[in-house]
């Protein structure tokens, strides 16, 4: 159990800056997921918490102690690596117990704790095997066992599931979450997989290009992305965007020459501003061509998901995805109308990419509406 506080952390290699001042606070026992595309600096940040990477400037403290200059062994963290990093020449038991051996824990005590850990991660039968004799999922368990045996204050996961096949990944995801509940240590989990991020996180952090884009619960982040990047990064298919300008009256934006109504409360404050308007695929509606308040569109192609379908339509050369339940069939090439409900249209500044109504009261209001919906 430990709080982690990260203050204005920066990292650069030579002239290339990887992290541009990151401020974060993790509560004790929280499951934090850091999500971002490749190269956003998320792994670097995790490794700085672990003590594997020098901190160029800023301060990291765990439980109130500044750990910048502490060796990894003195920070009370343990880590699960992407490629597991098991010691190839040691048995499963020796791998799990190595930290205790280094710490000088007596043999009997060590064996007892290895057995207990093996039970938790389900490896009792395999303790004498070498890593090369294990399947991917089993190796993953050894890596987890090695992490939990030290009873650390903080668990660090560096994309631990990305080397597993899809089915195992889902299974291990559930197990990690269960383990977290049981051990209740603070966990920091780095991934580029948004499904992992959404399902695991208490607190989700989205990073891009060395900046923190947004911190929040998965639902907050999904429904009220703070920046255009977050909106487009989270959700599959991604949020649809079109660039436009808010009408002087503040009640609509133009899309392909058609007036699309927006929340007047939102528009009033931003009248005349150039904006990127975003809307999630599941909030769009397709109607027959020519229906009032609809933007004319051509069906490009349809993806069948079984539980529903995604219709890709084209408007003025721009692709729009519409997620729908089963129901009406649309044929490729047919003309349709696209309706964009005003309450679901989110506006982002065209210059800064920031959400235009990013304030607390608005946040509460939207969460209520989305939960109700």
């Amino acid at each position, binding site marked *: 159990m430990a709080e982690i506080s990260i203050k204005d952390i920066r990292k650069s290699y030579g002239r*290339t800056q990887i992290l541009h001042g990151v401020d974060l606070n993790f509560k004790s026992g929280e499951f934090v997921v850091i999500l971002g595309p*490749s190269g956003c600096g998320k792994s670097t940040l995790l490794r700085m918490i672990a003590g594997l990477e020098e901190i160029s400037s800023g301060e990291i403290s765990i439980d109130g102690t500044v750990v910048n200059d502490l060796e990894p062994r003195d920070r009370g963290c343990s880590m699960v690596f992407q490629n597991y990093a098991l010691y190839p020449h040691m048995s499963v038991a020796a791998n799990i117990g190595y930290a205790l051996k280094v710490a000088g824990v007596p043999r009997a005590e060590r064996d007892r704790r290895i057995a207990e850990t093996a039970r938790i991660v389900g490896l009792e039968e395999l303790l004498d095997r070498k890593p090369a004799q294990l399947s991917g999922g089993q190796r993953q368990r050894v890596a987890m066992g090695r992490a939990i045996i030290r009873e650390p204050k903080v668990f660090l996961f560096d994309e631990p599931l990305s080397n597993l096949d899809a089915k195992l990944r889902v299974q291990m995801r559930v197990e990690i979450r269960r383990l977290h509940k049981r051990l209740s240590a603070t966990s920091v989990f780095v991934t580029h997989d948004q499904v992992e991020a959404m399902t695991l996180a208490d607190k989700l952090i989205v990073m891009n290009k060395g900046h923190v884009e947004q911190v929040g619960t998965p639902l907050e982040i999904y429904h009220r992305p703070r920046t255009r990047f977050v909106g487009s990064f989270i959700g599959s298919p991604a949020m649809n965007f079109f660039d436009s300008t808010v009408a002087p009256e503040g009640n609509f934006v133009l899309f392909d020459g058609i007036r699309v109504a927006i929340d007047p409360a939102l528009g009033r404050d931003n009248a005349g501003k150039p904006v990127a308007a975003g809307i999630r695929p599941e909030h769009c509606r397709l109607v027959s061509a020519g229906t009032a308040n609809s933007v004319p569109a051509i069906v490009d192609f349809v993806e069948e998901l079984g539980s529903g379908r995604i219709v890709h339509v084209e408007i003025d050369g721009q692709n729009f995805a519409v997620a729908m339940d089963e129901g009406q069939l649309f044929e490729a090439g047919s003309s349709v109308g696209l309706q964009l409900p005003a309450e679901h249209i989110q506006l982002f500044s065209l210059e800064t990419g920031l959400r235009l109504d990013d304030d607390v009261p608005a946040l509460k209001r939207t969460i209520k509406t989305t939960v109700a919906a």
Partner: protein
Amino acid sequence: MAFLASDEEAEPVDLMNKRAVFKSWWLPIAFAMPQLLLIFFFFYWPATSVLTWAFSLEPAFGGVGERLFVGWDNFREVFADTEYWRSVSLSLLFAFGATALSMFIAFVLAICVDRQLKGSGLFRFFYIWPYAIAAPAVGLAFRFIFAPESGLIAVVNTWSPDLWNPAKFGSHAMILVVVCFAWKWIGYNFIFMTAGLQSIPRSLIEASAMDGSGPVRRAFDLQIPLLAPTLFFLLVLNLTESFVGPDTYGIVDLTTEGGPNKSTDVMVYRIVSEAFRGLNYSGAAAQSLVLIALIMLFTFIQFRYVERRVHYK
């Protein structure tokens, strides 16, 4: 240092360094200390002596502090000696002859073995053997095999006397030492060529076969070009080794001892015998420096080449 910002997590891509390192200023020094001491005493100190000796004159054994700086005099003296230039050209002849012979035979054998016919493993097993044999032993054995009065070749002298006599004719002696060196290094060259050929992906050979090329065509179009880095490395190494290598010394010492009539008095042999028998330290040191310059040139070429190869990978 290579640097790719777009790489996963924007870690610096660095072929020379580990990402994970330990922090300590004295531990690495402690770990490196045995090696440091050894190379200081047995490499750098002697090497510095070579340098000072080459530019100074010193009385033989025991004279301390009376070294006389003479600039390039020792070199001038060495270069003015026609014997020296003869030795240089003999060395060149020896090095190029031995290298060409050894590499050619090894290459032919490697290509054959690489066809992976039944039993080629056994051939490979034996082809490596010569490398295990010390140069003096090779010298002694070949001295017997190529002796004028007994052994394998002696029979030609029964047809006509002195058709073959390395103890009498310089050219025969040179052929003898070249053959010794070449034979010993077949094993080494073979090992590297086989390794190089094996690293050519089978799929490439198969693709080329699908394109309708025969085995000989493939050797020229595919295997030789792809083996070029290995061949180049071996070329440089063979030349360096035959110029200054211990094997050259050992072979010459056990077969011809530089003779007859100094016709196999190659540079290495000359340096050692001058320094020890003639007690001409300064002359030997100057000659050593010339050799060192040659090796450095070779190594420089090779290093640049190898570096480039790493970047292609």
